[in-house]
């Protein structure tokens, strides 16, 4: 039970705007489902509210970091623009908690990364995860289907790991090395330190992968911050994510994963089948439409607004939907 008045207000605002747009702009076709066709404002299809949807409530969840909050809000607001009622349970925690909640019915849907679902839920060994984004998605979709969950089509962006460092560190300590293989070959390779989330220790797509695939055993510094540890000199390198806003600044040179250690991590909105029936093709179309503009660059921008500019995810999601013409 979260009483987030701010979210509710934002949602009501979006809804009113969407209704207003419907009233003002388009045809005089009344009745019948909303569907597409309404005001082509700036290329994106405006989501029109269908009053019939008001009787359906969906609970959208998310995991507990910025990108997840933003995505959760985007999907939630998109459904609300279509007239559905949406309850939010963002900030659920780790993927295990989210998946449990999804299966148990505490939430109806949440956005999950293909790679994560395969390794964390479906017991696929990290080395067996398909490197191709589409293959990985199809495999995840199959597995989800066995649980009566539909994995909606994947986003084009993926949020995979990146290894970064500071400019000075790359010049001095790493002697200009630009790929992980080069770094691993340095004489002082094992004396370097790399920072990452605590759970990175166990992940073969994280620290363990460096050990196994690159035969590199750096010292590990567990830290919840991503760029802070290297900024504050607690570690030489850091595990970060490809959609991090900070990457746009150019301040953090990337050490390239030339051996392709990191598997695909595209987002797929996983929704239980009974909930999918409730929102019908309209709801489904809205979800699929609203995630189309999410390129890596756009996602980085959205993440920046939350992590660097310290804006609220709900507001950032709303701005995104407006920019790309889904709401007005």
């Amino acid at each position: 039970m979260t009483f987030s008045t701010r979210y509710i207000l934002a949602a009501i605002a979006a809804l009113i705007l969407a209704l207003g747009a419907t009233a003002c702009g388009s045809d005089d076709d009344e009745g019948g489902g909303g569907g597409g066709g309404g005001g082509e404002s700036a290329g994106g299809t405006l989501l029109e509210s269908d009053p019939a949807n008001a009787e359906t409530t969906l609970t959208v969840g998310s995991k507990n970091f910025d990108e997840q909050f933003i995505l959760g809000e985007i999907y939630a607001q998109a459904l609300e623009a279509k007239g559905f009622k949406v309850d939010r349970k963002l900030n659920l925690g780790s993927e295990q908690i989210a998946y449990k909640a999804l299966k148990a019915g505490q939430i109806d849907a949440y956005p999950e990364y293909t790679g994560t679902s395969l390794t964390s839920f479906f017991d696929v060994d990290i080395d067996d995860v398909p490197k191709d984004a589409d293959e990985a998605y199809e495999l995840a979709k199959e597995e989800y289907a066995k649980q009566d969950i539909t994995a909606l089509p994947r986003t084009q962006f993926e949020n995979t790991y990146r290894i970064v460092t500071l400019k000075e560190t790359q010049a001095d300590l790493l002697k200009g090395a630009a790929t992980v293989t080069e770094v691993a070959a340095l004489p002082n390779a094992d004396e370097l330190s790399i920072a990452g989330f605590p759970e990175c220790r166990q992940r073969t797509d994280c620290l363990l992968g460096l050990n196994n695939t690159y035969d590199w055993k750096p010292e590990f510094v567990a830290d919840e911050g991503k760029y802070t540890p290297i900024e504050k000199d607690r570690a030489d390198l850091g595990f970060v994510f490809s959609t991090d806003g900070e990457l746009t600044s150019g301040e953090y040179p990337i050490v390239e994963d030339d051996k392709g250690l990191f598997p695909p991590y595209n987002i797929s909105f996983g929704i239980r089948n009974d909930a999918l029936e409730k929102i019908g093709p309209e709801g489904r179309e809205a979800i699929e439409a609203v995630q189309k503009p999410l390129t890596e660059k756009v996602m980085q921008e959205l993440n920046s607004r939350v992590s660097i500019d310290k804006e609220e995810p709900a507001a950032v999601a709303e701005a995104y939907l407006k920019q790309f013409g889904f709401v007005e």
Partner: protein
Amino acid sequence: MTFELIAQEDGFFRDRSGEGANCVRDEGFCPDWIADNYDRYVTPFFEHVYLTVTSVAIGFVIAFALALLAHRRQWMVGPVTGLTGTLYTIPSVAFFVLLQPITGLGYTTAIVALVCYTLLIIFRNVVTGLAAVPPDAKDAARGMGLTDRQMLWKVELPLALPEILAGLRIAATTTVGLAALAFLAGAGGLGEQLDRDPEFKSNVAVAGGLAVGLAAAIDLVILTVQRVATRWQRAAA
């Protein structure tokens, strides 16, 4: 799978390159940002208040009832103190976690744990307060023909009030501190807001400041009541 790129990204990307010192981007203490964003602390703050007040209230009712029972049955004091003491000793992080298989995630788990922490302090203080009532006062009351129950409510409890309120004070301020960890049980509160961005000094300052402020405020309120009650005591004596 192909994607149509909706190419109206223009104007969407902000320029964040070397704009010089920007308080927020440097994660410092930024009064302007705080002024603009204080409303994101409102809900966590009220969640925190809710958790504290509810837990202390329930804890008080239970502990008070137990103490009244134990007042006439001295043998109870040991075991109840032992039990509540054991509950008190279990670290809050562990407690929030251990309850989850039973009560799941959410307010219930947090409140159960927080209630358990208040029991020892309140129980102990009520018992001690009642035990410290001077025998003369009780004799006088009996002499005046008061029944046991009347004596309890008209003489003993009023005299024990300062001690009871002192216990309430300790319980309340401790609960505010413990409620900061309630987010581990899925119950929100200021701790959750704090945990969202622990490196952003403004966030730490506001979330932390509100928690400490809340504790200080509750402490002050109960202290004032305590002083007033004591003064009234002395005046009436």
